[in-house]
């Protein structure tokens, strides 16, 4: 935009200058642009004429419009009338005042003492963070065990569920040396155990090593230890202290738990609604029992294993599955 270039007979020498002049007239222009427009108006007769004419016209239009509303323009009486017509407060405002005090107090705390508040909050977060991190790391250490499975050690978090997918069955070797052979499609969960790195049981000192059998067959060779070894079935609980035994659930028939003992002594207890129901059987080597349903008793506390069922006691060879 050349400030000296004006050769038209229209109102303004260009649309750009027209816009600038209107902004100048409306007092919406920056100081640098203002002096530029003023310089241009000194040199450009068309723009100068346009500006003066526009200013004059707008003054007159504004004057007319303002005169028209003058009589009704709100003044002091308007305010007085309005204030008199305001409705009275309907209810007690004490609660609103209390809420305001609390809100103001919180705001002041953050506005005036924000540095101290921020420092205190940071320290608190650091302390709590350290505490929870330490506890969490301890908790995590206690919440897993290493189980040898398929020729490699797996770091399993407790509770660790397993589902056997190998048709030949699978071996599991636990940190204490106990071995479990599970048949195809057996579903069980390691609920409490101890790792070789820890002296305490995962689920607490003094508790049994616990396996929960959901469905299928387990051949278990329990390594003797201070803690017992418990297999929980939906309707029975089997507890030992170092023995070889067989336990199955839902294999022969639904809700039927079968326990057969090869070595040692096994205690079988009837369980109903997660509580020992009173009926129990103590099995010695080459004895078996079964628990049927959820309301009955343990059958045959000392029944010897039928020779036809000797397979219960033949612990599978390691090459049957993969360890």
């Amino acid at each position, binding site marked *: 935009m050349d400030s000296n270039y004006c050769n038209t007979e229209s*109102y303004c020498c260009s649309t750009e200058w*027209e*816009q600038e002049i*209107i*902004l100048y007239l*409306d*007092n*919406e222009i920056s100081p640098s642009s203002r002096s530029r427009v003023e310089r241009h108006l000194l040199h450009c007769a068309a723009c100068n004429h346009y500006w003066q004419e*526009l200013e004059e*016209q*707008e003054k*007159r*239009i*504004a004057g*007319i*419009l*303002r*005169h*028209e*509303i003058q*009589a*009704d*323009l*709100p003044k002091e009486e*308007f*305010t007085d*009338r*309005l*204030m008199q*017509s*305001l*409705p009275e*407060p309907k209810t007690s*405002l004490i609660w*609103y*005042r209390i809420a*305001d005090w609390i809100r103001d107090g919180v705001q002041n705390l953050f506005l005036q003492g924000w540095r101290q508040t921020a420092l205190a909050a940071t320290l608190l977060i650091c302390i709590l963070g350290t505490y929870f991190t330490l506890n969490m790391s301890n908790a995590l250490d206690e919440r897993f065990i290493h189980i040898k499975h398929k020729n490699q050690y797996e770091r399993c978090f407790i509770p660790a569920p397993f589902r056997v997918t190998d048709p030949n069955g699978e071996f599991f070797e636990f940190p204490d040396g106990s071995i479990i052979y599970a048949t195809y499609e057996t579903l069980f969960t390691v609920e409490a155990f101890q790792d070789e790195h820890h002296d305490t049981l995962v689920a607490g000192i003094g508790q049994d090593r616990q396996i929960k059998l959901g469905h299928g067959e387990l051949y278990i060779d329990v390594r003797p230890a201070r803690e017992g070894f418990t297999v929980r079935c939906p309707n029975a609980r089997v507890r030992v202290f170092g023995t070889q035994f067989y336990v199955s659930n839902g294999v022969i028939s639904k809700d039927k738990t079968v326990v057969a003992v090869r070595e040692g002594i096994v205690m079988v207890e009837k369980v109903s609604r997660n509580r020992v129901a009173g009926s129990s059987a103590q099995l010695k080597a080459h004895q078996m029992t079964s628990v049927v349903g959820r309301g009955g008793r343990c059958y045959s506390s000392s029944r010897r294993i039928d020779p036809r069922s000797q397979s219960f006691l033949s612990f599978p060879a390691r090459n049957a599955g993969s360890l």
Partner: protein
Amino acid sequence: MMNTTEVTLIKQVLSGNQEFYRPLVEKYQQKIFVLAYSLLRNSSEAQDLSQEAFLMAFKKLRELKDQKKFGSWLYGITRNLCYEALRKKHVETDSLDEVPPAKVGNVISMRGVDDPNEEMLRTMMKKLESMPEKYRILLHLKYLKDLTYQEISEMLDLSVDLVRSRLFEGRRLLREGVEQEWREEHGF
């Protein structure tokens, strides 16, 4: 009056001190009136509506979420009341098959019509009143109260850029309309 002062006043009003509403009314009453007049084009109706807007704002003050934006909120209430009044008036006018009387140039008509400047001014006022609303309302606000673009944008809930461009376009339309009518009437 800074917004912080407004917030303090609003808190006092909400606490039951109604007299603290007065400074708020005094600050906004003329702008609210001008806004209502620009939309309604009738000063007595604009005054009644301003009163109604302040009353409604007082009753609903507890619903105002951001107390720093009392002004924008009040303008919004005023606009809505104006649109409602216009809608009612439009329905009544349609049902009565009436055309609202033009009240343009009352002041000019009191003067002599022989003066070419007065005649030009009357033409301008007539053109201003017949302009599309989106330009006329902005020009009215500018002429009536000499408001800044920022204030107009807040009152009409428009961007400042849009206010700037519409004021420019409005003035150009007004000038071209007057020129055209002048040429038709005087044959040059």
